[in-house]
Structure formats: C-alpha cells, structure tokens
C-alpha cells in the first residue's frame, strides 16, 4: 500500500503549484489555514479516490478529514482497515 511519503509528496506538489514553497510538517493545517484553497481539496479527494479507493459519497466529507498529512493518512488507514 502507498503510504505517508506519497501523500506528503502529493501535498508538496499542490503547495508548490500554488506558489507556496514554505516548510511542510505532517501536522500542518492545509485548508483551514488557507495554504490550499477549497478547489485544491478536490485534487486531494481525487487522489485519495484513485489511489486508495476511498469513496467519499459513502463516508461523507468534511474539510477536517483532509486538513493535514496526518489527517489524510489516518483516513487512508481507517479505509484500509474498514473502520
């Protein structure tokens, strides 16, 4: 299974594309802090749907779920274990 490193790399690409080359820690807020815009959340969602089989239509969606690399990784692990 792909892991945290891939998620980190993906988020880093999104930030760079937005002109944000600042430091990125796994617990940093991405959406609620305004570093990424709401339309960037779609990129993360599509990435999770395509690479980790997460179905947001089933589990519901809140920005908190994908607001940091830690949160995204927890979501991925939760989906993998079926919780």
């Amino acid at each position, binding site marked *: 299974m792909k892991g945290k490193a891939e998620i980190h790399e993906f988020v880093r690409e999104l930030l760079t594309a*937005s002109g944000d080359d600042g430091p990125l820690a796994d617990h940093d807020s991405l959406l609620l802090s305004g570093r990424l815009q709401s339309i960037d959340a779609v*990129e993360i969602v599509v990435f999770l749907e395509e690479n980790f089989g997460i179905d947001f239509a089933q589990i519901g969606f809140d920005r908190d779920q994908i607001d940091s690399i830690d949160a995204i990784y927890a979501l991925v692990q939760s989906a993998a274990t079926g919780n």
Partner: protein
Amino acid sequence: MQDNQAQAVVEKILHMHPGVREAAAVHDGHDGFVAFVVPDELLMDGISVRGTAGSTLLGKWQKTFDLSQLSKEAASAPVGFNTIGWNSSYTRQPIPAEEIKEWVENTVEDILLLSPTSVYEIGCGTGMLLMRIAPHCDRYVAVDFSPVVLSRLREQLRTVPSIAERVETMERRADNFDGLGENAFDTVVINSVAQYFPSVTYLTKVLENAIHIVRPGGHVYVGDVRNLPLLRAFAASIELFQSEDEIKAGELRDRIRRRVEREQELVLSPAYFLSLRQQIPKLSRVDIRPLRGRADNEMSRYRYEAILHVGQDAEASCEDEFLDWTERSYSLKEIRSILGENPNKRIGIKRIQNARIEKDLAALAVLRDADAELTVGGLRHGFEETSSKGIHPQDILDLEFQGLGFSVVLSWAACSPDGNYDACFVPAVLQQGVAMPAINWPEPEASEFVCTANAPGQGRLRKELIDHLAAHCSQNLPLEMVPRNFMLVDKLALTPGGEVDSRALLAARNASCWP
C-alpha cells in the same frame, strides 16, 4: 524608420504568433513599445488548467459543490437555507447565518422587482432563492451541474409540495440549453454562479443563450458578481487582515500579487456586461448595482448585480445630469435638502465615496508606495486611524424610506477603480409604476473596456504565452523594436473613428501595474 512604420512591423510580427488573435503595439513615449495582445481564446480555453487529476476547472468546481453537500451539517440544514460552504475569505470561518439571510432576502427582493412568472435558474444549488421565488411564479426550472446538490434540493422539495408542484429540476451544465425554445421564460437567474464558470468565453455563451430564451420585456439577472476593478483592493484587504504585525510591506505586496494571480474564480468588470450591448442585439439595457445591505462582508463590499433587460425597453431620459460628489462631498443632510428643494425632478449624484470600502482603498494606496521594510503593524496603525469620509450605500438607499417622495437607485456601471458609486433619485410622481426606470448612468472610461475579466486557472499559461511572445519578438525584430512589456487584454480599445486608442490602452496598463 518612422514610429508608425516600426509599429506596423511589430504588430505584423506579433500577429504571426499562433497564440495571438489581435495585437497592437503602442510606444509609451519613454522606454519603447508596449505590446497589447488579445490571446486566441480557443487555444487558451482549450488547454486544461493545472491539475494532477487532469480535470478541468469546471469539473473541479462541480466536485467541490458535490463534496460540500456530503457533510453532516448539510444533511441537517433547514429547507431553503443551506449555507454550507459559505466561508469568509478573511476568517476562513462560515459567514454568520444572519448575514447570509440578509444577502438572500435582498437578492430575492431584487429579483421579485422584475415580476418573474416563469423562471430558469442556472446553478440553483440547494434552493435558497428557489424556495422564496417559486411561490410567486407559475413555472420554475432549476438546473445545477452537481448531482449531489440536486439530490439534496429534491429531498427538500418533497417536504414542500406547494412549491414542488411548479418546479422542475434538471442536472446539466450552465451552457446546456438543449430543448429550450426562444422566448420560453421571462426571467433567467444566475446568482453567485458566474464566478465558477471557467472563462469569460463560457460566460458569454451562457448569456447569449439565456437572452435567447427570455422573451422581450424579460430579464437576465446575474447576481453576486465579483468586481474586477476592485480585485486588488479585495486581495489587499484579506492579506492585511491575515498578516501578522511583523510582516514587511514588501512581503505583503508580494502576497497580494500572488493572491490576484492565483485567483481561481472568474472576476468580472461591470464593463463586461455593458459591452454585451454591442454584441447581442436583443439586449436593450444593462443595470449594474452594488449589493444592498448593512452586513459588512465580502459580498456587500465587493460584489454587484448585473440586470440585463431583454428587448422592448423604455428609452432613458436624456435629462439625467449628475452632481459630482467629489466636488462638494455632500452629506446625507445636504442630499436630503437638495431632494426637498426639487420634489419633482430626477436628481443624480455621481462618484459618491463608498464608506464600505474606503479604508481598504486607502490602505491599498498607502501600501503601494510604502517602503518595503516598513512593518504591517506600523502601517496598520495608520490605516485604522483613517476617518470615514464617504457615505455607506445603504444610507443612500434608506433615503427612499424617509418620506421624501423619491425612489433611489444605485449604480456601479462607471467601473470606478476607487469603488465610488452613483445614485439617482426618482420622484414617485415621475416613476409611474415603473419598478426599474431607465437612467443614463455615467459610463466607464474607454480604458475600462480593455481588461474586463480575469482568466482563472490560466496564470501559468498566460505567463508562458508572454514569455513565448517576448522570445518570438526578440528573434524576429531588431532590439530597439522589441516591446519592453507585453499585456494580455480582452479587447483592443478603439477610438470612435476605429483607430487603436493608444491612450486608453496605456491607461489600462498603468492601472494594472503593481509594485
């Protein structure tokens, strides 16, 4: 070589580039030529925007709205008042419900003034307008591109059969008018939706079709439109609000520039809507109004409504003359006195300083020239001490309810980059039951028609085009003829005689400059 010969050569070389639809070279009188280029829109719009998923901007917005309705809060939102996703750009927190309520109610009132009976609403969302307007109509067709949003709306409609019986819902894109006949409706509503359109070309296609399906005497209401001439002031106000005191002015200016360049939503000048009058013969008149309301938020400060009158419209009175507020700084008391002395005359006042955003504009002016090393904390102190000189638009509108016998209409049609607005006071005795009198509003300067929309999601593409054009000119022109600057524009300003209006183009360029 003569200047005009050199200009012709530069323009010829520019036209040879495949990304160029129209081009003009103008000597700025100092450094050399500036190239003004209308890009080939098919080429620009045809290239996918940034996106690792390879999706289009429109697809991303659709998914954003789909996601917004998958939260627990959305599932429990009251019928006709689902405010999920309405977040402040300043605080990133939800905009208070009472502010959304005022915004909705004012919007509904403005649409009901158009006396709609058969409505086609593009981007109906979860029905905030529909639930309030449909009860006044015989037929209400509501379309949205998000299946999740429409599903939520249909669930809510089932609980209100008296409204549901006159409403049809359709899942389709805004530019899909299949099966809709000419003059089929009297009103098309596009509220708080145009900002999610991928380009101004797309919007124009939608509006051409919308006007086609509206019968003469009807209207296309485009509401909650983000204002391009004030985009930088809006960006500056957000960045200033969010910046820590120790940030330097130079860094803040960079953040403002990045925010404007990264803008993902379509932002439009009122001049765009005014220019449609030349393109669409069925369009007879355009009114541009700042939003009403007391709430202090980004909608009331920086957005407007464009009301497109379709066919058969009364001629505007030729008598409208406007007092210039900037010459006398009329107070509300003085305006009341003028109205009292002229009870039977239409009175216009132009260029009223806008108290809603005057501090933002003052801060922007100071920031533009501030030493790069000054801190935001120091600058902010100065901004906060600026006293208010203008008049709140709602204070002018409220004059209508003070027994003076006038109705009041505001306009932002002049596209004033300082956010000033115009007002017209119409005596009730002259209004004769016309809800929206035709008024000869002050028109924008020619330079305001040069750039009438941003290009969301195309920042990188447009920068690449400019780099290509610069390289192309360097390869094909002697050094002294290579333009020093390139500016992508929506339209080349022309003089009444049909010549390129150099003065207007240079004015547009100067207005776009930011340190």
